[in-house]
């Protein structure tokens, strides 16, 4: 029943996404602008790594795409609460977690698709990376999207208005982006920043994808990245399903 319900909910929101070119492409605008107008600045800068500057920037942009795209996913559910759509679904026998999982799968798929387009653009700009590394990057993008979208929907179920939701998400995503070293390696900075950076889960993910983009797969970064991504996803989906099971009931 969970699978069946998830498929129905996924299809509903996937159809809505497919009908909206705006929704399909707009989310990748910010990382694309960084790629075009920020990426070239890094070409000849000493980044403290043997890797090419594109191999450092593009993994960061993929996770930035996921971070911002998925964190704001909850807005949709605030609208659907006001139109009664959420309660109308909750009075049907559909499995409660399916109402969450169907949505986050759509989000993960959409953001992965945008990640593919972003990497294609990056290849044109000069990125060179092994295929396996690029695929690993997509996997991290998808898992992060799934995790953050779960948390975003959970928060959106608990707040009453978009005015409460937006500022909270902004207050989390901006420091998360700065502290995780998505744009530039944090190792360029002072030691304390590096320590603080390791308190966010995103830091481990970006280090893992940067390794993957240089073709190094059996590294400590990769191990920590996989563990943190999996742990974060498990925690986020647990929180999300708990809220969806209990919300209002």
């Amino acid at each position, binding site marked *: 029943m969970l699978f*069946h*319900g998830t498929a*129905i909910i996924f299809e*509903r929101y996937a*159809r*809505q996404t497919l009908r909206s070119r705006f929704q399909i492409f707009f989310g990748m605008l910010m990382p694309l602008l960084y790629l075009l107008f920020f990426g070239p600045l890094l070409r000849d800068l000493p980044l403290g790594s043997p890797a090419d500057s594109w191999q450092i920037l593009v993994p960061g942009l993929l996770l930035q795409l996921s971070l911002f795209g998925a964190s704001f996913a909850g807005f949709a559910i605030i609208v*659907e609460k*006001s*139109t*009664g*759509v959420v*309660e*109308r*679904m*909750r*009075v*049907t*026998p*559909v499995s409660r977690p399916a109402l969450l999982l169907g949505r986050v799968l759509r989000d993960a798929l959409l953001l992965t698709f945008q990640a593919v387009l972003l990497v294609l653009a990056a290849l044109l700009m000069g990125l060179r990376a092994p295929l396996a590394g690029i695929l690993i990057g997509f996997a991290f993008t998808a898992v992060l999207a799934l995790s953050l979208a779960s948390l975003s929907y959970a928060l959106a179920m608990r707040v009453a208005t978009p005015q409460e939701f937006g500022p909270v998400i902004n207050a989390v995503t901006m420091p998360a982006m700065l502290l995780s070293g998505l744009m530039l390696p944090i190792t360029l900075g002072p030691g304390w920043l590096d320590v603080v950076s390791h308190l966010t889960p995103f830091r481990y993910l970006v280090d893992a994808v940067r390794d993957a983009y240089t073709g190094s797969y059996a590294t400590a970064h990769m191990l920590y990245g996989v563990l943190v991504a999996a742990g974060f996803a498990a925690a986020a989906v647990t929180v999300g399903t708990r809220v969806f099971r209990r919300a*209002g*009931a």
Partner: protein
Amino acid sequence: MTVISTSGLARTFTTPSGPVEAVRSVDLSIRAGEIVGLLGPNGAGKTTTLRMLTTLLAPTGGAATVAGHDLVADPAAVRAVCGYVAQSGGVDPFLTVREELVTQGRLYRLSRADAAARAEELAGALGLDGLLDRKAVSLSGGQRRRLDIAMGLTHRPTVLFLDEPTTGLDPGSRTDLWELVRSLRDDHGTTVVLTTHHLDEADALADRLVLIDGGTVVAEGTPAELKTRYADSPDASLQDAFLAATGRPATPAEPAPAAV
């Protein structure tokens, strides 16, 4: 046969300013095929009662059985036999009527083909023929309300809960909706529980009224019984009976403008 029975059903909300007893204690006994109106002023606890009976809100006290299923122990079974139409409806305004009806059928576990057929059938039965490929936002108020009700009827529920079903409708659409509710009961034996604060609606539509005020049932009976009991005559107005039973009017009068 009793379809809904509740005993001491209660819901207290915890708010920053202390607990709010939205529903203190509601005892109901509703028979199969009845049209029951829950009548009361705004904030009386009507909607909270419906939200509990439809599993949207867990009771904080009391017990209830809906169509033979315990509300707290087996909410999934209750969902399978109940339809609920909220005051706000429940369709996405920017999706088509067909899309919403088919999805609803799928959520009630119909196969793709059955859900598509059921959407056509419901559209025919509720006067939405020819509107299946229109977006909900483009429907008139009456059509929109019929769509909301079609959504609640997807799985041919034993009990249909309607929360203020005629709010915002013009007089013609209101009487059409009353007809629809009566035919649901007459043709399918559906038990209908609706909330309203329109006394004329309660009088015209409901077999039996349950007056709710301050989170408890203050009176119940057929419209004629209530008029006789509280206003001494079956020909009295329900407004008089309501006043006598609760000590205040069903719909608070709008303050008159000081100057025009």
